[in-house]
């Protein structure tokens, strides 16, 4: 249970320390700047952490007492919010420099953008001082995605790429064997072969949103040879590569995809896959750790399907960063280095179970025998996919932006959502691929103009 909606009446005002000490014990609330009062005394530092709501973060919340018993002078309040909310709240907080949060979870999308603006603190000096924090152990793809000018600006808490998951038993019944590195044509053929009235061939996200439908679709576009912008920031959505990729995606959904594709996001596909209603699923590598029953027993894992470009998997990491305006940087580093350390991985493994260890951050995690046993089928695919995902060279032709399943510019949240909505309309059958791409091209061209100046 989170007490996020209980707000301290003293919010926004510095309060005497003894009051804070008493009240904070009871309220795990958004106390914001009230904490500054506690800090000035120098005894106890309270860190307010804005965190995205996912399983890895829930586990972190459970293990905070372990951190506090080792660091009695640092108090940690974790405020968990759904993904879209945390993004809005943290963006507003950091842009207005209001100092409500001392630490926050941000993704690979935010880190280079905010580092460039000077909104988040360069962590290189802290890492240099902290000999125990082995940053060379971080998986290379993730490390470069969280760096700006070769310095880390956030430390990964959880990382993922994308892969194809499939039911070995269902494919075997049609005499299909899935290669480790399938092409999209092979996947489409397999999906159509196993598709029946009770089981759909494949689940692909159709729910609009740049973090939902557009993520897998973007990786298809990339491997088909498409890109959002050319080196001069001219929008490229009217090119044949985009048309082929989007047509392929929509047709695959229509002929062998899950029913009601327009509503299907990560959660819906996971439920369908676990219920045995879809034979294959192309999504985040983390999905495999949520499989139950037959899905857990009979699943095979393949690398992200390709067309022209190899290694088409996406790259995402939830990571911890601190605002450069923070006055509690040392305490914040103490906590964030603990939560992303090798020891923390072991702590999760021994206390909560090895299957619960957040994947995709440290190479050393994949050498732990217990973890290997708990993630037998997908550990290698996850590790390799993340290591090969290159945010700087995501496409066949060179691009002026970074990001695999997104474009790392401020305008992309809005642009991505709008473009994704146009594709949703195609999936719903209310417009053609050409109509959608024409509108998308106009939207992207308007954004590209900003960068041509």
């Amino acid at each position: 249970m989170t007490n996020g909606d209980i707000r301290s009446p003293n919010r926004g005002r510095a309060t005497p320390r003894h009051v804070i000490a008493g009240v904070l014990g009871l309220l795990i609330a958004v106390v914001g700047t009230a904490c500054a009062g506690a800090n000035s005394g120098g005894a106890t530092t309270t860190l307010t952490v804005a965190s995205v709501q996912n399983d890895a973060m829930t586990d972190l919340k459970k293990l905070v007492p372990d951190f506090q018993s080792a660091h009695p002078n640092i108090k940690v309040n974790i405020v968990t919010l759904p993904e879209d909310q945390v993004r809005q709240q943290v963006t507003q907080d950091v842009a207005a420099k209001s100092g409500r949060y001392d630490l926050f979870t941000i993704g690979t999308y935010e880190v280079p953008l905010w580092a460039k603006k000077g909104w988040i603190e360069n962590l290189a000096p802290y890492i240099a001082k902290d000999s125990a924090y082995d940053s060379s152990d971080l998986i290379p793809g993730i490390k470069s995605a969280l760096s700006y000018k070769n310095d880390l600006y956030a430390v990964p808490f959880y990382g993922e790429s994308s892969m194809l998951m499939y039911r070995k038993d269902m494919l075997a019944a049609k005499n299909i064997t899935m290669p480790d590195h399938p092409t999209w044509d092979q996947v489409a053929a397999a999906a159509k072969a196993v598709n029946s009235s009770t089981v759909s061939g494949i689940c692909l996200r159709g729910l609009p949103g740049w973090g939902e439908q557009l993520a897998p679709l973007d990786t298809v576009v990339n491997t088909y040879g498409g890109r959002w912008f050319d080196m001069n920031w001219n929008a490229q959505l009217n090119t044949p590569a985009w048309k082929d990729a989007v047509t392929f995606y929509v047709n695959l959904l229509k002929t062998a995809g899950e029913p009601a594709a327009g509503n299907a996001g990560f959660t819906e596909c996971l439920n369908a896959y676990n219920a045995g209603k879809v034979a294959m699923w192309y999504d985040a590598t983390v999905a495999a750790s949520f499989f139950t029953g037959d899905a857990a027993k009979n699943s095979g894992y393949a690398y992200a399907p390709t067309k022209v470009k190899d290694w088409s998997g996406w790259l995402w990491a939830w990571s911890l960063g601190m605002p450069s305006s923070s006055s509690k940087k040392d305490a914040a580093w103490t906590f964030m280095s603990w939560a992303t350390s090798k020891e923390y991985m072991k702590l999760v493994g021994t206390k909560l179970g090895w299957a619960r260890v957040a994947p995709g951050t440290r190479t050393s995690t994949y050498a732990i025998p217990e973890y290997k046993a708990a993630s037998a089928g997908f550990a290698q695919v996850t590790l390799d996919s993340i290591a090969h995902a290159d945010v700087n060279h995501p496409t066949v032709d060179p691009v002026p932006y970074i990001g695999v399943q997104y474009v790392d510019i401020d305008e992309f949240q809005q642009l991505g959502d709008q473009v994704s909505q146009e594709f949703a309309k195609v999936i719903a059958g209310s417009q053609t691929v050409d109509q959608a791409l024409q509108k998308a091209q106009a939207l992207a061209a308007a954004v590209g103009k900003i960068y041509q100046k």
Partner: protein
Amino acid sequence: MNTGSSLLRSVVGSGGARGTAASISRREAWLRRLPLLPAFVYVVLVTQIPFALTVYYSFFSWNLLKEGSFRFSGLDNYARLLTDEGIRTAVLNTVVLTFSVIAISVVLGMAVATLLNSEVLGKGLMRTLMIAPFLIMPTAGALIWKDTLLNPLFGLLPNLLTPFGLGRVDWVNRFPMATVVAVEVWRWTPFMMLIILAGLQSQNPEVLEAARVDGATPFQAFRRITLPLVRPFVELGALLGSLFVVQTFDSIYMLTYGGPGQDTTNIPFLLYFVAFQGFNIGQASAIGVVAVIMTTIVATLGLRTLFSIFQVEARR
């Protein structure tokens, strides 16, 4: 009109006291108003200052994500309101949504109110049940519609329609505007019903009795006697309702997120989208200002109708 406006003045307050005002000194008048001051200050603080700031920001090109983007841009944001196709679509969607929701819910509300005004079995229970949709939180209501009723995989409606071959229709994505209208009609029909029912119950049953004796059919009596009587109530319901329906946000956010495409993006949703996905504060402020002006126009009309009801009441 005369009796009406004098009554109105006494209802509204200070103005009506003018008749005897000569004896009350200016100072005393202010002393009487003094207890209202905290409320007045509060209203100014929480409504007028934010609004003034919004107007101020609307003249600036300000994107929260762009350092140094805060600069005066005159009427640029307003000019974009006229030229941007996305904004025109949102205005059109708002009009379509508001008009259809109000029209349909008034007709349904009238029908239900007429039913509840007659002698039927279980009237009390029925009335309570009819009001229920209005009492359910919009967000929860929209989720129930989206997941429990309309979900093409496990929803109630697709299951019921399976025998007719409509079992796998994705209503929300296939007919987005119709779905939003349906959900909003479901929410607003009880509101219309309550207001119209109040009007119907003020009707003297003897008048209808007399009409029947004079040989009027029930339809004629409804058309010539009941309808003119409840007309101001219908107008009031429609105008108050449209004030709220213009601002519909919750159900759109939950049901369609403004899509697919821009099919259900209305002004409030567009404002949210521009402000919190694009972080374009200047543009969002301009949209907000225009939305407030539009709502104020509707509200003024609504209040006028409200007063005309007082006049009708006063005449009787």
